[in-house]
């Protein structure tokens, strides 16, 4: 029979039991992919906002080639955006994330307690919300300073769907995203002057979405660094007792 006392000296049971816990935490918090997705969001957002403006200026100045060119690029962007959201992101985001974490290899977290998918309802609510709020702003019913607080009605459910509606567990740090967005709305309602006006009014929603998303993703990423260290400490390899030794990389 094997002698367990060998293991008592070599293997610290508590540390070993911590290995799967830290492995899961590490894998779950590799969140740089969220920043890649946000990058795609910003590119699309700048394109959707900027290209019609450029086309308008070009047509106004009689530069028809420039105007038509901007509209063609806008059409391409719309097709690309649709492709991205309908599943194309799976071809883009994981390879980019894989490169970002290339040295640490690839790891997949198992099915979690994400619960059943809630369907496309919140995405539809988001679309209807964006259009509805734009109309309310255009007709002057909704003051610009209330843009961001009102947007929480459709943005927060969308975040919840994005983060909790999937079948795989996400980094708990990403939940900071809707929390910070809601807190931002609270500050705006409380009268803190943090709004953009005029042509930059669209930043009132876009900047908190992107900014808090980056903050949440970076917080998750920083935690993944910590989790990796804890994982490596828990899995501290023995220096003897192995046929090939406990060599370090």
């Amino acid at each position, binding site marked *: *029979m*094997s002698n*367990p006392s060998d*293991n008592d000296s*070599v*293997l610290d*049971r508590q540390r*070993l*039991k911590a*290995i*799967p*816990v*830290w*492995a*899961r935490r*590490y*894998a779950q918090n590799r969140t740089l992919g969220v920043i890649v997705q946000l990058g795609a969001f910003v590119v699309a957002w700048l394109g959707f906002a900027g290209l019609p403006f450029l086309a308008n200026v070009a047509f106004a100045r009689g530069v028809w080639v420039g105007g038509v060119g901007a509209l063609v690029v806008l059409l391409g962007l719309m097709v690309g955006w649709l492709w991205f959201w309908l599943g194309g992101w799976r071809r883009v985001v994981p390879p980019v994330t894989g490169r970002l974490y*290339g*040295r*640490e*290899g*690839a*790891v*997949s*977290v*198992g*099915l979690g307690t994400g619960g059943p998918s809630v369907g496309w309802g919140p995405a539809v609510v988001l679309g209807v919300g964006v259009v509805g709020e734009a109309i309310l702003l255009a007709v002057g019913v909704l003051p610009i300073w209330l843009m961001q607080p009102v947007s929480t009605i459709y943005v927060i459910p969308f975040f919840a769907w994005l983060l909790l509606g999937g079948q795989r567990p996400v980094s708990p740090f990403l939940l900071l995203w809707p929390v910070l967005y809601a807190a931002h709305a609270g500050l705006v309602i409380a009268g803190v002057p943090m709004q953009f006006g005029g042509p930059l009014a669209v930043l009132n929603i876009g900047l908190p979405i992107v900014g808090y998303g980056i903050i949440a993703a970076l917080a998750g990423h920083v935690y993944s660094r910590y989790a*990796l260290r804890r*994982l*490596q400490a828990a*899995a*501290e*390899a*023995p220096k003897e*007792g*192995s*046929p*090939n*030794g*406990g*060599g*370090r*990389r």
Partner: protein
Amino acid sequence: MNDLDPVVHEPVRLRVLMLLSGVESGDFDFIATALRLTDGNLSWHAGKLEGAGYVEVRKSFQGRKPHTEYSLTEAGRRALEGYWEALDGIRALAGQDGR
């Protein structure tokens, strides 16, 4: 009394199994980084675990680079649980003998 499974009892292999028990799957670089193992050391022990049917190995190519992914099999999960139970049993006996 239960014997300790010699495949699982080896410290590096026990760590690999514990690591894979926390995730769905992980590739060679992930395991080597997490456990700070040399490529040769990991290859040796992964081969032993695969031979015992405790890990499933999926080999593919990412571009021109070979990619090896590992996941714990059901047999590996049972072996790991059995190992801890056996260790508990041995410790309990050792405690009785010591009284």
